[in-house]
């Protein structure tokens, strides 16, 4: 990897024009819609998940506006509020958080990082995007044709027998989009097994690859259970077959077991790829090998396995057996251990590094802080006695937003800023980048920290109206949400502007290690002009003395 072109290489700069590479290969609409290039498919995903993120975000903004006052005012009726939080949850979880990092950054980077020309099944990859869009459109249809008011959790028997909304259409959308996840995951697993460059052994894989590998395993094993559960919901709803509704001889708890058997691992589907992103960013901006590489890779796999064994901690007050509750509680504490290893090792990686604070690093540091708070507040929920009190209150809402939004979204934005020069060949404004990272961090904490307090004093979630004593904290939360919204809008603008006016990035603007930085930015259609041969492990950063002497060179490409 020592042959990485430097950003002062004039030849490389010339090749890194965005009219070159995969972006300039063909400009027709058809060439995008029928592409089998993993990089272009990654961009298709990027555009679609951004649209769904904006839809889900718009719903969230309305919810926060409604909750500024105790009485209902923004929405005409509780039903509209209930539909909106369902839209927010369904779009964010199934159409943004789950596909986010793997389908956008993973699609773009997995082949590049292992030195492959494409994913193992390029056409299947395109198909998975189409399936994603069909699922998305079905769900959008459900939203236009009356909405859905069950929440993203679709608890029975409410969803099967009592809701008068478009449950089937929305569930069908989620059913379909599941296949898109499965196909992408399958593609990743096969690619990582069979298409690594010569010398790229398993223990030389970047942690981003390990993270996507572990995620893919969860997706392949867990998503079918969700599909089956959705079919059972549809069968009960359409044909009145007693599965979940006790009035027909079913068991409502069965649904919760099946649902959380998928949906708890799904939390790790959302967060594991983020761990990979953060490991790449922290090493690049500390200019140091990751501390405890094997433990970091092992922790990813341990989380993937343990994540399947803790679903019952969503059901401590559901009337599940107390012995089952105990097992799920102790396992939930154990799953915290590998998550702790990650945070410890990121911190230790900074030790004796050479740390610089570019936008991706600011997002990554924000991630570490927010993920730590999100993870530790999870202890309150895995402890049975405290969970009884805070279950289904705003404490839970705050906790999982710290993990999902504070974790996954921060990591996604950090990764987007880190690899933006690779994806587009252009640099964005560092000033605006740093400002957005700071705004998102502050806005996020303002929005969600008050919700921890709100939850402990007793405000239940999914409430359209609430008692007056909860108003102060709700107003704070809504104020924070407006700051957060500004923070999220900023990258949308300056990243787009960078496409026109951004400085040419060159192949490796961060002087980062990794095969993806050894090719032009944007990369040519087949990624590499020659076969890469890997001779050392990942994160092979130079010793500090070299780094210092090359500092001037490194920073030339970055403004």
């Amino acid at each position: 990897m020592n042959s990485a072109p430097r950003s002062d290489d004039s030849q490389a700069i010339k090749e890194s024009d965005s009219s070159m590479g995969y972006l300039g290969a063909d400009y027709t609409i058809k060439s995008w819609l029928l592409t089998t290039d993993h990089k272009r498919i990654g961009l298709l995903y990027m555009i679609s998940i951004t649209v769904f993120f904006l839809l889900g975000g718009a719903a969230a903004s309305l919810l926060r506006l409604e909750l500024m006052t105790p009485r209902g005012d923004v929405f005409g009726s509780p039903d509209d509020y209930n539909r909106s939080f369902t839209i927010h949850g369904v779009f964010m979880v199934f159409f943004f958080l789950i596909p986010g990092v793997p389908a956008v950054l993973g699609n773009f980077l997995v082949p590049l990082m292992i030195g492959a020309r494409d994913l193992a099944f390029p056409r299947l990859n395109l198909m998975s995007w189409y399936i994603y869009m069909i699922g998305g459109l079905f769900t959008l249809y459900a939203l236009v044709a009356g909405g859905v008011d069950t929440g993203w959790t679709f608890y029975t028997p409410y969803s099967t027998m009592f809701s008068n909304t478009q449950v089937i259409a929305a569930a069908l959308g989620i059913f379909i989009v599941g296949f898109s996840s499965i196909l992408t995951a399958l593609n990743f697993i096969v690619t990582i097994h069979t298409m690594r460059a010569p010398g790229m052994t398993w223990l030389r894989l970047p942690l981003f690859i390990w993270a996507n590998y572990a995620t893919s395993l969860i997706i392949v094993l867990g998503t079918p259970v969700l599909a089956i559960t959705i079919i059972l919901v549809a069968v009960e709803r359409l044909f009145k077959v007693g599965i979940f509704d006790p009035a027909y001889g079913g068991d409502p708890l069965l649904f919760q077991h099946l649902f959380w058997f998928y949906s708890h691992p799904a939390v790790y589907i959302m967060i594991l790829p983020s761990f990979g992103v953060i490991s790449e960013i922290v090493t690049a901006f500390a200019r140091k090998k990751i501390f405890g590489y094997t433990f970091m890779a092992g922790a990813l796999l341990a989380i993937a396995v343990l994540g399947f064994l803790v679903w019952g901690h969503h059901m401590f007050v559901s009337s599940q057996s107390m012995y089952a509750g105990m097992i799920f509680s102790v396992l939930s504490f154990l799953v915290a251990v590998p998550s702790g290893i990650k945070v410890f090792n990121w911190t230790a990686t900074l030790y004796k590094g050479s740390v610089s604070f570019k936008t991706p690093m600011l997002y990554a540091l924000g991630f570490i802080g927010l993920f730590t708070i999100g993870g530790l507040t999870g202890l309150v929920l895995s402890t049975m006695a405290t969970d009884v009190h805070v279950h289904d209150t705003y404490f839970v809402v705050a906790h999982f937003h710290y993990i999902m939004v504070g974790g996954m979204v921060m990591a996604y934005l950090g990764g987007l800023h880190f690899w933006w020069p690779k994806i587009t060949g252009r640099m964005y404004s560092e000033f605006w980048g740093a400002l957005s990272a700071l705004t998102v961090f502050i806005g996020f904490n303002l929005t969600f920290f008050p919700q921890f307090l709100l939850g402990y004093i007793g405000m239940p979630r999914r409430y359209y109206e609430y008692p007056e004593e909860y108003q102060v904290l709700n107003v704070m939360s809504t104020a924070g949400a407006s700051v957060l919204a500004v923070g999220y809008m900023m990258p949308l603008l300056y990243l787009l502007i960078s496409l026109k006016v951004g400085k040419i990035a060159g192949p490796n603007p961060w002087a980062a290690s990794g095969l993806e930085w050894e090719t032009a930015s944007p990369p040519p259609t087949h990624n590499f002009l020659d076969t890469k041969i890997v001779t050392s492990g990942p994160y092979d950063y130079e010793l500090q003395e070299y780094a210092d002497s090359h500092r001037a060179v490194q920073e030339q490409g970055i403004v």
Partner: protein
Amino acid sequence: MWEFPLFPDSASTFAPKVDALYIGLVLISAAFTFAFAFFVLFFAVKYRRGSNADRSNIRDSSPLAEAIYITVPTLMGIGLFIWGAIIYFELISPPADSIEIYVTGKQWMWKAQHPEGSSEINELHVPAGKPVRLIMTSEDVIHSYFIPDFRAKQDVLPGRYTTMWFHPTKVGRFRLFCTEYCGTEHSRMGGWVTVMEPSAYEAWLEGSSETNGLAAEGEALFRQYHCSGCHGANSTVKAPPLEGVFGGPVPLLNDPKDPQSGSKIIVADERYVRDSILRPMDEVVSGYEPLMPSFAGQIPEEDLLKLVAYIKSIGRGRAGRTLSDRGMSEGEGASSNITDFMGGASANGGTDQ
């Protein structure tokens, strides 16, 4: 409006224990968060690019450090688990002398029925200083009964009984919420729990009772639904008598369809009585034929609760069918809390335990 509470009111025996555990968890979390924040920021600044900090002897990994990362959080986690589990056991183990109140949830209201006959909607009156056990069911979807000031919560499911208990320590009015999303009016499905001095509670019960008590109504229903035709004393059909059944062991056939399959022993509780009415073929008492038809769909939840209360009143150790007699004097009958309470109500706290 500008008050800034961090804790809800502390109005039950659970509250101080759960709060102590919560504070412990928050302190540990805060310690870790600040430690991480300190080290991340300290390293990031000390080893910022271009600083002259000492960077010799860089190590890529340290098995000792990893072992500490793994051991310390694991031990700490198990410690917290045990602390939480001990309190949790208390949260789900009602004392034997609890007052029992039946609660039915339906879209979008809570109905409470006291054994003495009082019933109330979106309100619950309980005496201070006595354990209260709620036996709950839902008529439609899943609801959840939540009283933040008591730190008590339990999901309420259709088709089965769930129970929760608490021991109020403070007189006052406390908010009651539904915390399991249940449709349009979910956020309005709540009310108040009123904790009263025991004497005031007795007076309230006296004043609000419209009937002779749940068990007495259950006895009437027992005849109305023709249960007594088979289970009564003079019946010609061979059905098990129900006196003394509740609370005691019942031998059930291992395979309800096969009289020779041998038997297992269960304890007759509310669930057993309910299921025996709605799904009699599932659990057949050893030595009897599976003859009883199912009453599923024919008896509303509120009537079921009354029937259960009646079966309970003639249960183990209870004094026959005298419960409808509210004039029972102290010591007569059994140690049933219902019995005690009935006696207490009429004698104005005479049998208070």
